[in-house]
């Protein structure tokens, strides 16, 4: 089985979010970038397939040279090859188009993406990629088993779960649940050394027309101070929730 894992390069979860150039660009100053958490679950599941059932695992990112340390980290975790499509990621559709080209050229059976990246939270790429490839698609995937060319997946729905079956080729939008968090792999010294020798192929991007454009950013208005309520006077809390906040 040939597996492709899509890796998004995102600010780590504790990053302070700021903007520059008249609030038109994300300020990367002092920001530490990591593998998108949803993708990390997918990558670990892919490594499980490799170890338990036999599979090759390639990782791919659409982005400039600055994303290479993130791809190297994925190689250190155990991916066999990395591919970087050399163009800045501009919108979900543009990224999905680039990924579709890589997926098609490589003839992958299974493409694992994260349900969303934690920067723009678009939640577009996995589904668009599946539609462009005309492949089967399962979103919000929290469990995945493959037997031959048959897949059994569980996805999270509002208020529960759904079990689905489909044949390969398959694209999933993965998330926490695909593997236990305690099983997430941290690159060790040996992995890091090996990763240096593994191929990281840079491929040229396709021409894609943009469908959406992020024009401006804004931060939420600063919040007023919290109103503290005496634990002996909970009636006040109920009164405030009812009359001031109109929340109950």
């Amino acid at each position, binding site marked *: 089985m040939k597996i492709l894992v899509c890796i998004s390069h995102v600010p780590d*979860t*504790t990053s302070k*979010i700021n903007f520059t150039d008249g609030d038109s660009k994300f300020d990367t100053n002092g920001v530490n970038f990591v593998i998108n*958490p*949803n993708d990390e679950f997918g990558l670990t599941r892919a490594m499980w397939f490799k170890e338990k059932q036999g599979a090759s695992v390639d990782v791919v990112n659409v982005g400039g040279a600055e994303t290479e340390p993130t791809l190297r980290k994925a190689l250190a975790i155990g991916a066999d090859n990395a591919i970087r499509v050399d163009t800045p990621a501009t919108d*979900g559709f543009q990224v*999905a188009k680039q990924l579709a080209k890589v997926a098609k050229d490589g003839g992958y059976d299974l493409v694992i993406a994260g349900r969303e990246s934690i920067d723009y*939270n*678009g*939640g*577009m790429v*996995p*589904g*668009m990629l*599946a*539609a*462009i490839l005309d492949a089967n*698609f399962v*979103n*919000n995937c*929290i469990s995945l088993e493959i037997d031959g060319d048959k897949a*059994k997946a569980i*996805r*999270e*729905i*509002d*208020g*529960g*779960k*759904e*079990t*689905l079956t*489909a*044949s390969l080729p398959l694209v999933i939008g993965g998330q*926490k649940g695909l593997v236990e*968090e305690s099983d997430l792999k941290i690159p060790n010294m040996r992995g890091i050394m090996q990763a240096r020798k593994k191929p990281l192929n840079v491929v040229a991007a396709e021409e894609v027309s*943009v*469908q*959406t*454009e*992020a*024009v*401006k*950013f*804004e*931060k*939420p208005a600063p919040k007023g101070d*919290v*109103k*503290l*309520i*005496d*634990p002996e006077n*909970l*009636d006040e*809390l109920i009164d405030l*929730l009812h009359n001031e*906040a109109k*929340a*109950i």
Partner: protein
Amino acid sequence: MSVLVYTETEDGKFKKAAFEVASYAKEVAGGDEVVAVSFNATDTSELGNYGVSKVLNIQNDKLSKFNAEAYADALTQAVKKEGSKIVVVSQSANSRYLAPLLAVHLNAGYASNVMAAPESTDPFTVKRSAFTNKAFNFTKITTDVKIVGLSQNAFGLKENQGDATVEDFSPELKEGDFTVNVESVDKAKDKVTIADAEVVVSGGRGLKGPENWGMIEEMADILGAATACSKPVSDMGWRPHSEHVGQTGKPVASNLYIAVGISGAIQHLAGINAAKTKVVINNDPEAPFFKAADYGVVGDAFEIVPKLNEKLKEFKAKNA
């Protein structure tokens, strides 16, 4: 020109999100028509109260269970038939599943997590939440057909009384629409989900163990709320993963979020920024959550919550 909405049903009944997308579409449409596509609804008349003027009514057993590909195909056909230029969907798990497929089928730009009516209609620009609610991003959609994914509770319901005409609609479904098969659905009945809830009551590690959740469930019961938790709570198996709220869990956009024994780490706060009113109960006055909250009570949850529950019961009895 018309604006088309996907009106979600569950067991034949419209979800609140269906009325919310209709309310939004009515505002965006101005004087133009709002067309709703409904799947196996038992009664479509309510849609007229939220500005819908025409319902494309699909009755088809093959679509009794949600299927992203088949639903996206049906919606694609409806948009083409109506010549709609704007499509509005909610951001439920199912809508998020089908919207990117619909976008590719229609060659339409899609903006997800939209928080408000468009900033401008020419160019068509919407305000989205990004960086897990730590910021907003104004996005311009440049394609001819546009898809808006409206965040739950962001726009609210607006009544727009009118009569909707109902037209039977039978999309042509292909074999290829059913290559992903739904084998079974496992869903708690009669339980408010985090996505739909007006009020969410959430507990953190401060509650010490799963045996102490009775008082959280009781509060949720009194308020008709959904229950939720912080990440370590679900990691330790005290509560199901589906209740985990935050950057790597579920987003919350309820009117009220009550956090009990949750410290307010940045990853947790990211998931609840969109909640309108936040109440924190914590014994540590230095807990970061107090900086993000509207109302706070400093004290022991095991003393405060049972007392608060009694008072909430009295309040509900009086205001029923």
